Each structure stands twice: as structure tokens, then as C-alpha cells.
């Protein structure tokens, strides 16, 4: 006879689930509303989403408070793991989503926003990401990963253009392959250790002193391939530029930030114990990934003619840059990862939003893509403020001080220096210098060229509403005055990361 399962509710520690449940409830609510009343305005759904995300955020604040007092929490049969990484990454995920969702309030009407499903999917996706980071269990990681990814494919496709479908199909197919890789990797680890929990895996592997290093590496290879896809490491990056181009600018901006931080956290959990256990192979491979991703993406970004595609490659390059943090694997580097990503999200969201507000409903005849460089030529003459803000984001992305991303780069490179990766530090900064060129190219077009398309400046703000402008304003302020919040932010992040044992 099997004993009846006797579980006390308290031991489940359902608190740990609360942040994920809130967006799920929100999503369900949206669907329910849609059942009762069709054709409600998107503002309602935006507000609901925003509201639930806010609640999510406050729940996270609660968890953060608990974490600072009690340290790491486990819950729900030890499946949930609420540590500093989980909380920090969820802050980024939810925070960035809150900045993203008002971008739906465009001036022009776009197909996807008229569906309440869009918002429901969006909230499901957020929950998926949150699950992904708040667990140690590869099953839950997989579930979270797929929940969010499937939602994301759909969201990309909902933009309802040929390119969007193409992008979605590409993204989806490659995602499916990556899912296969993930499950295979998980299987290998399971076969080796009999567990799917990362800390268990680590413990077992350490206990038998990595005798089966060859098999461990096979598992690591598939995990790397899977997360390489998610983090768009070269050569698993090929989806990124096409998907960014196909998706709407706002979605592209979102994709450059939120899914990646989730993947980074999992990668951090998964790979760092291996690196710290002295798996030299992984160190070499990650080193190569970091350098190749940074450099190759940079030189591809150089030759782009479309701003959005350039920003796509630039995001790939930034991901490679940040991957260095995982390679270095010190407390400072892991803190730098979060710091960098927070600052990056402000800047990148800002720059994609700038593309978003300049988005026309239909592509003009002579334009091959939505955001060619030519479109921005001479922008300063017609809309100087917009041009200045865009220039600001570009400078920040290039790492010109004192704008946001400079501090991230500073701290990350510093962590490379303190971690003993001198050569890496130099390669990182030299890549920043190369990257300077393509960011500068946009500035050159905006500030130094004569207008090519003979417009009155309306196209740069065709899509602008108060909401969008507010988001851009927030991003701009965040970019300029990052240094004000830097110290508390840094202290908080370091404390969280340190207390999680990374």
C-alpha cells in the first residue's frame, strides 16, 4: 500500500509561487473578459496587464524582503528556488515588461493589439520566464522555457505581416530544435546523476569526481546549444536578426532583453558550478563563444543597412559581451551581469521604442525595410529632440560615458580584470570600439547628412502617443541619470548575488 500523500500547506511555501501566479491570473482574467464582451479597447487590456504586472512587482518586492531576512527559499516540493538571482532577474523581467506593455498604445492601429489574446499570451509568457528563473529543476526550466517561447512565437506572428510570419516560423523551428537539445542535455545529466535538479547534479558529479567527464561534456554541449540559441550566441544566433526584423520594433526590443536575462540566469546556474569545478573544456568553449559572438556580431552589424537589423546584431553582440560574466564567474562578474542588463534594458528599450514611434503603417514603395538608415538622414533638422534622444541611446549603447551602458561595461570589464581575464578585458573594450562605428553611423545619418526622403519630420513620430513618449522619456532619463542610482543598485545586486552563493 502506498502511504497517502500527506503534505502540509505550510511546507509547500506557496509564497514562492505568488509572483508567477499573478500574471497567470491576469491572463485568465483577460480571457474571461473577452468571453463576456468582445471588441473592448486595447487601453483596457493594457491597463489590466500593467496592473497585474505591478502586483507582480510588489509581490517580488515582498519576496526580496523575505530573501534579505531569511536567505534562499525553497518551495512546492523543493521545485521552486527563490534566491537572489531569481529575484533580481524577475525584477528585470517584470520591470522591462511594464515598460514594454504601454508600447501597445500606438497612434496607428496595429493588428495584434486588437486581440485580447495578445495581452493574455504576453502575461503567460511573463509567468513562463519567471518560472524559468525561479527554479533549480530542469523540468520546470523546460516548462517555463517552452511556455514563454511558444507564447513569444505567437506574439511575433501576430504582427501580421509576411515578414512576421517568416520570422515566427524561423524562430519556432529553431526553437523546437533547441528544445530537443535541451531535453537531450537534461537526459544526459539525468542519466549520469539520476537527478534533474541542478544542485543535486552538481553534488553527485562532485562526489564521483567527474569520472565520466566525457559524458558530462556531452550533456553540457546540448545545454550550450540550447542556451546558445536562446542567448543568440554565434553560430546559434541566426534567428536573431531575421526575427528582430520581422517582429514589430517594440517586440524586438522586448526580445532583446527579457528572454535573454531568463536564459542568462539558467546558464549561470548550470554552467558556473561546472566552471568552478575546473571543467577546463567549458572555460575554453565559453571563452570562444564570448569572443566569437561579440566580434562576429559586431562586424555583421557594421554592414547592415537597416537600423533595426543593426540593433539586432548589436543585441547579439551585447549578449556575447555579457556572456563573459558567466565565463568569469566571480561575484563581481555576476553582479555586473545584472547591472549591465538593467542598464542595457533601459537603453535598448529606448532605442527600439524610438524605432517604434517612427514606424509607419505601411511600408513606402521605395523602402526595402521599415527603418533604413536613409530614413533617418537629416533627422536633426526636422525633429531635433527625437534625434537627440536617439543619439543619446546610440551613445549609451556604444558605451560613451556617463550614459547608462558605460557603467555596465565599466563594471563588467572591471570584473574581467579582477577575475584575471586580462586579454578578455582588452578584447571586450576593442569590440566596444568596433561597435562604436555602427552606432555612430546612425548618429552620422541623423546629424550630419541632408534629408534624403524629403519629409517634414512627421515620419519620425508617426506612431507617437503620450504613452510612447513617456516610455521613451523614462528610458532616456534612466540612460542619462543612471549614475545617480548606480550605488544603491550595485550594493543591492552584489548583496543578492553574494547571498545566493554566486
Amino acid at each position, binding site marked *: 500500500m502506498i502511504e497517502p500523500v500527506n503534505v502540509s500547506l505550510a511546507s509547500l511555501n506557496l509564497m514562492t509561487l505568488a509572483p508567477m501566479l499573478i500574471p497567470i491570473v491576469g491572463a485568465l482574467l483577460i480571457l474571461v473578459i473577452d468571453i463576456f464582451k468582445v471588441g473592448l479597447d486595447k487601453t483596457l487590456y493594457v491597463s489590466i496587464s500593467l496592473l497585474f504586472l505591478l502586483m507582480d512587482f510588489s509581490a517580488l518586492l515582498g519576496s526580496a524582503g523575505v530573501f534579505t531576512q531569511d536567505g534562499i527559499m525553497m518551495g512546492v516540493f523543493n521545485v521552486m528556488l527563490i534566491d537572489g538571482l531569481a529575484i533580481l532577474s524577475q525584477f528585470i523581467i517584470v520591470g522591462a515588461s511594464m515598460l514594454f506593455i504601454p508600447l501597445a498604445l500606438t497612434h496607428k492601429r496595429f493588428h495584434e493589439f486588437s486581440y485580447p489574446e495578445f495581452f493574455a499570451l504576453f502575461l503567460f509568457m511573463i509567468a513562463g520566464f519567471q518560472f524559468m528563473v525561479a527554479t533549480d529543476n530542469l523540468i520546470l526550466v523546460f516548462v517555463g522555457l517552452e511556455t514563454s517561447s511558444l507564447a513569444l512565437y505567437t506574439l511575433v506572428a501576430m504582427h501580421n505581416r509576411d515578414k512576421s510570419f517568416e520570422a515566427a516560423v524561423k524562430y519556432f523551428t529553431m526553437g523546437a530544435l533547441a528544445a530537443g537539445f535541451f531535453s537531450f542535455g537534461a537526459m544526459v545529466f539525468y542519466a549520469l546523476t539520476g537527478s534533474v535538479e541542478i544542485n543535486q547534479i552538481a553534488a553527485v558529479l562532485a562526489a564521483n569526481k567527474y569520472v565520466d567527464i566525457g559524458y558530462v561534456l556531452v550533456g553540457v554541449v546540448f545545454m550550450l546549444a540550447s542556451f546558445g540559441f536562446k542567448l543568440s550566441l554565434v553560430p546559434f544566433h541566426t534567428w536573431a536578426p531575421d526575427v528582430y526584423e520581422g517582429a514589430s520594433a517594440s517586440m524586438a526590443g522586448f526580445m532583446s532583453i527579457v528572454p535573454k536575462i531568463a536564459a542568462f540566469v539558467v546558464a549561470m546556474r548550470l554552467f558556473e558550478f561546472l566552471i568552478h569545478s575546473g571543467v577546463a573544456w567549458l572555460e575554453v568553449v565559453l571563452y570562444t563563444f564570448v569572443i566569437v559572438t561579440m566580434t562576429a556580431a559586431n562586424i555583421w552589424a557594421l554592414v547592415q543597412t537597416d537600423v533595426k537589423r543593426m540593433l539586432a546584431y548589436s543585441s547579439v553582440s551585447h549578449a556575447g559581451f555579457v556572456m563573459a560574466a558567466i565565463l568569469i564567474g566571480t561575484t563581481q562578474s555576476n553582479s555586473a551581469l545584472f547591472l549591465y542588463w538593467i542598464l542595457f534594458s533601459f537603453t535598448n528599450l529606448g532605442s527600439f521604442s524610438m524605432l517604434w514611434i517612427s514606424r509607419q503603417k505601411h511600408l513606402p514603395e521605395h523602402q526595402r525595410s521599415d527603418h533604413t538608415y536613409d530614413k533617418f538622414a537629416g533627422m*536633426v533638422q526636422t525633429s*531635433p529632440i527625437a534625434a537627440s534622444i536617439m543619439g543619446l541611446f546610440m*551613445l549609451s549603447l*556604444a*558605451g*560613451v*560615458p*556617463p550614459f547608462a551602458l*558605460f*557603467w555596465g561595461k*565599466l*563594471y563588467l*570589464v*572591471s570584473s574581467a*580584470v*579582477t577575475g584575471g581575464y*586580462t586579454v578578455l*578585458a*582588452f578584447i571586450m*573594450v*576593442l569590440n*566596444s*570600439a568596433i561597435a*562604436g*562605428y555602427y552606432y*555612430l*553611423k546612425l*548618429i*552620422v545619418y541623423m*546629424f*550630419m*547628412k541632408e534629408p534624403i526622403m524629403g519629409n517634414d519630420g512627421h515620419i519620425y513620430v508617426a506612431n507617437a502617443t503620450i504613452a510612447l513618449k513617456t516610455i521613451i522619456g523614462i528610458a532616456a532619463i534612466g540612460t542619462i541619470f543612471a*549614475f545617480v542610482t*548606480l*550605488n544603491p543598485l*550595485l*550594493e543591492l545586486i*552584489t548583496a543578492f548575488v553574494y547571498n545566493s552563493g554566486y
Partner: protein
Amino acid sequence: MLNHILSILIFFPALAAMLGFIIHKDSIRAYGVAIAAIEFSLSLWLWFSFDSSASGMQFMEHLPLVPAFGINYILGVDGISLFIIILASFFTMIGIASLTDTKNEKNMIVTLLFLQMTMAGVFAALDGIVFYIFWELSLVPMLYIIGAWGGPLRIYASVKFFLYTFAGSLVMLVGMLFVAYFYYQATGTWSFAILDWYRLILPESFQLWLFAAFFIGFAIKVPMFPFHTWLPYAHGQAPTIGSVILAAILLKMGTYAFIRFSLPMFPDASVFFMFPIAVLAIIMVIYTAMVAYAQEDVKQVVAYSSVSHMGIIILGTFALNVEGITGSIFLMIAHGVVSGALFLLVGVIYDRRHTKMMNEFGGLAHVMPRYATIFGLMLMASVGMPLTINFVGEFLSLLGFYKQSHILTLLAGTAIIVGAIYMLAAYKKMFFGEVTNEKNKNLPDVSKRELLALIPLSIITIWLGIYPKPILAPINNSVESIVQLMHDKSITNEAKTRIPNLVKGAEIAKTSEQGAH
């Protein structure tokens, strides 16, 4: 107010620039001149309240920025930086005042005011990161000035300028991070404060690497051979005002940084690299002078002459003694005044003829005698005529380096020959002979507005050539403390002997002690 005068100096122009956006187009120039004049008087006030007899930092400000990572907003001036700050505000003022009709005048003036902020910031910063912020930020307005108001190749020139310098300074940034890390290892706290770094004594091998990292950043900025090729493009394409400020102030950041960072932080490495750098400096002097001689565009002549003169400044810096370093700092100011004036002068003729090709001119002395006279004066200053401002600097720089190497000084001294060759050749082509080109027959002489900028520069050129003491004395005091610091910090015997010990008493005591043994 005096407690925060440096912050005011830095941020006043920036705030004014922001306000400038709402000023009406017609009155923007008056506004710009007024702001720049206030800024200049503030910098003069700084000078008057400056205690010339003290050698340390004055008007220090301290504000935590990212204390967790040791980044603080620390400002201060000493004799080394004081005059460059004054020069910067001076050039901003006369630059705006002498601005000839420019399209988008408003953008130009706003940009210049931003540039002024960064220039003041670089020279007043006493924290590595704050320094770096202003250092990088100064690229942006200059990029815009060259790129938006420049000649036909302006975009190439401006992007090249930006990226080249940007790449170099990023390497320097890594160097800074290393220094901060070593400081952290030594003391357990992060600090980017320069004065903290001064106290750090590093092993020689570390010094060498760090020196090299800093060197790349500074050398590109200076620019030293072979990193100089961005400069002719930048100057060639930049509008007059851009060239003036680039030559007068921005290039000085590199040489200033050598004195502020490289020398006191890495005394042994400085000694180690002294000769290689001196050789580079000599190549800069001779080679670029020859290249200048071959130019057909008068602005390029002045541009390459800048490189050539920067060679002397570098040489003076790496003399590693009080005479040489003082001389090189003075020469920075001198070269700022003179090359600034020369670029303004080139601008005068460019405004009239819209060409800078020397073969388009000839015999201008007939039609524009006043112009020829001022140009002649600046030319003579540029070739280092005694009783002009340049001579003092060049003389002291070379004098200082002579202590280190006779033969290299002899080679570098050819500056006075090759400098004369290209300058006189250019002057001859432009001003002497008959007026052959019809277009030159009726050129108006320098206007009142142009004189407004040129006369003060001429006066400074001669006044400081005759009586450099008010500037030389404060510089000297600060340099003495730096040289002493270098001597005390140095580890190797060679450095100890190459860098003089200024505390005479200690030396005597030591020798007598040795005698007693």
C-alpha cells in the same frame, strides 16, 4: 561659492547650453558670447583666488558617486591644470565671438558650450572615472562640429576622429581598472581617486604594462606618431572653430594626462619608456614637419605643425625634471594660443576665398597688410622666436630633455629648423610675390570682428613671451611636487638617478651618512 567654483565652471556652460535651446535664433550669438564671457571671468576669478605658492590641489570638491566601487566626484586644480582651464574658456569665448556666419548657428553655439563643459571637466577631474567621462564626452561635441559643419570629407574625418580616439581611450580605461584593482588589493577598498593612486607603489613589470595601456589612450589623443593620421583629416575638414578648439585644447588633454597620470603613477615605467617615447617624439618633430612642408593646403600645414609641436611637448614631459615638465606645460598653453590663432587666421582667408590651397594665393601682403602682419607674428611665434610665448616652452622643454640625452635633444632641436622651413615656405607662398590671382585683388583686410579674436591672442603671445612668470611660477610649484613624488616613489636605481631629488637637504644628509660609514 569658491568652494564649488570648479563645479560651477564645469556645469554652468552645460546648463546654459540647455537653456540655449529656447533662445531665439537671432539672439543666440549674444547669449553665447555672454555665457562664455561669464565662464571666462569665472575662470579668471579662479586664477585670482588661486594660491600660487601652494603646490597641491586647490578648490577640492568631493562628492560620492558610486562609493561601493570607489568612484567619487572629485575635482581640484593645481598649477598644471589651472591655465589650461582658463585657456579653454578663453578660446570658447573668442571662438563664439568670432564665429562667422554659420548655418544652424544655434546648434553650433550650444555644442560649443557643451564642449566647454567637457574641457573644464577633463582638466579639473581628480577621479579616474570622472576624468574618463569628460574625456570621452568631449569627443561627442567635436564629432558633431566636424561632421555637421565640416568640408566635403567631413563624415569620414569626424568618424575617424571619434573611433580612433575612442578605441585608444577604451584601452586606457582597462588600464585604469587595473590600477583601481591593484589599489583594491593593496588597501582593500576600491578607489579611482587620482590622489589615492599616487600613493600606490607598483612593481616595475606592472608599471610597464599599465604605462603601455595608458600610453595608447594618450598617444592617440596627442596625437603621437604613428597614431596621428586622424588629425590632418579632422583639422582639414573641421570648420575654423572646430580646428581652433581641437588644436588649442583637445590635443592638450593627451599631454596633460601624461603628466597627470603616467608620470606620477608609473615613474619607473616612465624612465624605462623615456627613450622610445623620445624617439617617437623626434619622429613627430622631424617627420611631420617634413610632411607639413609638402602640403598644399595651408590648414594642413598648420595641422601637421601641431603634431610637430606636440612632439616637443612630449619630449619636455619625458625630460622628467622640473625644467622640462614645466616647459612642456607652458608649451601646451603656448601652442594652444599660437595654433589656435593660426587656425583662426586660416579661417579668415577661408571665409573670403573658400579655399585653403596655397597656390590660390600669393601676394596677400599687398592686399591684406594687417592680416599679413598678424599672420607673421603668429608664424614667428610658431617657429619659436624668443619673446613670443612658444619660445619659453620650447626652450624649457628642450633644456629639460638635454639633461637626459644630448644627442636626442640635438635631433629634436631640429624642430627650430624644420619648423622654420615649412612655415616660411607657406608664408612665402601665401603672402609674398605679386598678386597673380584676380580673385585676390580686392580681398578686404581683417574685419573688426576678426580682430576682436586676433588682437587678444597677439597680445598674449607677446606678453607671456616677455613675462611668463605669472604662469610659470604656479606651474613650477606643482611640477616640483610631482617630480619629488616620482623620485620618492621610484623603485629602480635608474629612475632614482634620472628623476632628480629636489629635497637638497635630504640628499646631503644621505651622502654625509654614507661618508660616515
